[in-house]
């Protein structure tokens, strides 16, 4: 078991290395970079002092070196102008656009992103699982039909549209400020209790909006999975033993229907970071999504590179987690049987 996990971690490291090369190559694909673009801009405006500073940055970050050297310096396998200082050493680089270290720019946004999306995730599961169970056990009843129609509506309504509508009414009825994850007056303030309260109040709308599409999709999938399992003979066996219906349902078919969702964790984790870009833009949430979009547009290479690598790492970690949970959950996988 330990050996298998170690082997997985090793392949993960190799995968990450390959991904980092791809990410870097893609970021470097368009001609020029943030700084050369800026220098051209400044030159045309004749700001010599700023040009000098930009050229200093170019040398400082080795942007005048060949691309493969830049790559090796970035991941920390080759000494740069400031010695070994790359991703491997925990130096995430400099954001040229914000003129601050990437860690500072991303810092708050990263965990706010996780908070928003985790809230959405919890919301999805709390709402979807009971509804799916109800819908599967009351198949072809009026209740099932209502849930199904609501599910389709939830799938079909674009998140950003719903976000605008909800923001409008939240403002009118509850006096919430439009946009953001806390009231504008708290910006830049330390995290104290009123700010957390403000955060919790502002979380409701994004959670609902981000979660709604996922909830609808999850109800549909969970219902289909459960219906398959409910028709299996072992469900009948459980009833024939005299198990109360709910207990029989949760112990046997429900547990069987969980496997596909566990297998999905690998896709879910990166989605936490990059999935809600559109909604974040509309709601002007201070999350990573909009930052990534900006960084890609302005070729802010270390910023974009770091966020993409972070998402890749989350994907791999998610895959590992889902595999480990599957092994724990399903003895057939544990024993290597079919």
């Amino acid at each position, binding site marked *: 078991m330990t050996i298998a996990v170690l082997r997985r971690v090793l392949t993960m490291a190799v995968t990450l290395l390959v991904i980092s090369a791809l990410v870097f190559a893609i970021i470097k694909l368009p001609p020029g970079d943030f700084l050369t673009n800026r220098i051209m801009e400044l030159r045309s405006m004749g700001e010599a002092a700023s040009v000098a500073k930009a050229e200093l940055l170019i040398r400082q970050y080795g942007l005048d070196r060949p691309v493969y050297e830049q790559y090796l310096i970035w991941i920390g396998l080759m000494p740069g102008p400031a010695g070994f200082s790359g991703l491997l050493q925990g130096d995430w680089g400099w954001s040229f656009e914000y003129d601050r270290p990437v860690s500072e720019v991303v810092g708050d946004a990263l965990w706010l992103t996780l908070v928003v999306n985790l809230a959405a995730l919890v919301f999805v599961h709390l709402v979807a699982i009971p509804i799916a169970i109800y819908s599967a056990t009351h198949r072809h009843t009026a209740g099932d039909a209502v849930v199904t129609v609501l599910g389709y509506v939830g799938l079909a309504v674009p998140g950003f549209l719903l976000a605008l509508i909800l923001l409008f009414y939240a403002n009118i009825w509850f006096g919430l400020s439009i946009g953001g994850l806390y009231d504008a007056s708290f910006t830049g303030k330390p995290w104290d209790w009123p700010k957390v309260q403000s955060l919790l109040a502002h979380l409701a709308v994004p959670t609902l909006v981000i979660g709604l599409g996922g909830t609808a999709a999850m109800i549909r999938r969970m219902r289909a999975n459960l219906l398959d399992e409910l028709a299996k003979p072992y469900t*009948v066996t459980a*009833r024939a033993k005299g198990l109360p219906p709910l207990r029989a349902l949760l*112990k046997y078919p429900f547990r069987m229907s969980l496997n596909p969702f566990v297998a999905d964790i690998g896709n879910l984790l990166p989605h936490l970071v990059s999935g809600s870009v559109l909604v974040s833009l509309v709601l002007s949430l201070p999350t990573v999504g909009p930052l990534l979009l900006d960084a890609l547009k302005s070729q802010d290479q270390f910023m974009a590179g770091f966020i993409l690598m972070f998402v890749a790492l989350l994907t791999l970690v998610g895959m590992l987690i889902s595999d480990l949970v599957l092994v724990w959950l399903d003895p057939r996988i544990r024993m290597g049987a079919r």
Partner: protein
Amino acid sequence: MSPLLSIQNLQVDFGGHGAPFRALHGLSLDVMRGRTLALVGESGSGKSVTAQAILRILPRVATISAGRILFDTGRGATDIAALPPDGPAMRAIRGAGIAMIFQEPMTCLSPLHTIGDQVGEALRIHGNATRAEADVQARDAFARVGFPDPARALHTYPFELSGGLRQRAMIAMALILKPALLVADEPTTALDVTTQAQILALLTRLQDETGMAILLITHDLGVVANVAHDVAVLYRGRLVESGPRGAVMRDPGHPYLKALLHAVPRFDMAPGERLTPIRPARAVIPPARRPAAIDGPILRIEGVSKIFTLRSGRFGGPPRVVRAVSDVSLDLVPGRTLGLVGESGSGKTTVSKMVMRALAPDAGRVLFDDGTGPRDVHALAGADLFAYRRAVQFVFQDPYASLDPRMTVRQILTEPMEIHGIGGRERRARAEALMAMVGLEAGALGRYPHAFSGGQRQRIGIARALALDPKVLVLDEPVSALDVSVQAQILNLLKDLQAALGLTYLIVSHNLAVIDYMADTIAVMCRGRIVGQAPKAALFRNPVHPYTRALLAAVPDPSLDHPLDFSAVTGDHSDPGRWPEPYRLAPDEAGHMVEIEPGYHVRHGAADARRAA
């Protein structure tokens, strides 16, 4: 004495999306204490519906519209039909008063929970036992049903067990609360004959020990003749005959039961005697055609071996090696049938897959002769391989899983022709001819598989195999998934098609009676080796090998004059180390084939060879 269970005028209706229909038309029958009542009938006769009604686990679309099911709980009779199906009163009866075992021991056990958990569960619900108490009793139950290591069984998952042990686990689960009535719905249909005999022996023994009543649902009259005390015959939701076993079986009054007795292959059939299907099929058999003139076998399997390497149990252990097939040689004579018989795990399906070139042998060759001389199948490539694919076709065991539910019958039948470049017009004409050949209406070509019964689907499977006008058909258990009432139809159809089209069959089955009916030559396989090979008549006249004898002895015969000897079914028969001399084989010993009469070969051990030398 009052009956334990008395079904009175029971009527069950199915509603739902399809046309409403009545599954049971006022059924009345009594199950007496300590006796076994066999409920016999074909699929759709209402026997499973009866079982489900007794436990109130009917499908949602079914309702009990009239009648009573009186069950004597020991404190007076309760009308089960009047109880709410998931209420506490009904749940208390389930498991504790009436327990049930099912046909498919694999799918009826949850793969995610240990059998110790699932067996002990009933105790924890009904008797409020703790996990530890339940484990102790579950262990006793495993010992009672014959688990080799009951303590280990507690922590075993169903997929780690053989089919026979799974069914034993189901029985342990049903009997742990010592119910007064056991409802057994086709408990042995999915098992090998030898395992079936063991399970039947177990049920009989447990009945003697506990005095429980058994309601045994089956379509196998051989099983009925061996374990039932009373028999009730259902036909289209009505009771057509009932009474003590001897009276009903010896002197069947209803034509349906008479027909059923003649629709299953038996060993005492006269040479050339045909089965009489319950409902005659109207297949249009094409005019006879001579088989291709080939000297020698059309297909020769020469010293073929196959070893499977399994991933080890836990992560990182050494891989396990299974010798699935060891040095098997067989000849298929053109226009004749070779039967390959053995228990599950004996390697017979692996052999058929190597013939199909679905698996590559680790040693040995498969030679196919299309009239131009024998050629190694596994060395074929390109156009030759394409031609071989056309010449050898496969009929699968499960007619439900082997037809794509999203394709119409026309698509299913024309797809092979499309792949092999047969023109559109010819394809359509041939599809209609194929339908007629297997006795189906050409009008049904546009329908999807779900619209057909199991027997009809198997006909479609046969038609698909014949689409490319093959020379050899490999039949893997062609009727074992089918209802008894249609087995005869399919077997007769296969025989007629063979005679007309000059086909060569390789039929693989664990059912000796089916092999006996179909095959000209029979090879018996055990643990990957052929232990006996002989012309049909010689093998059944003189079954010398202990394994062959054990297989034969385990087949339940529908006539009351040949009862199974339950004391003889021990499970030792498949261990070559326990065979008597001269058949005994040491572990990994190959032994050698000895011809005991013309064409009759039996495998002997090395000890025999040393004595001869």
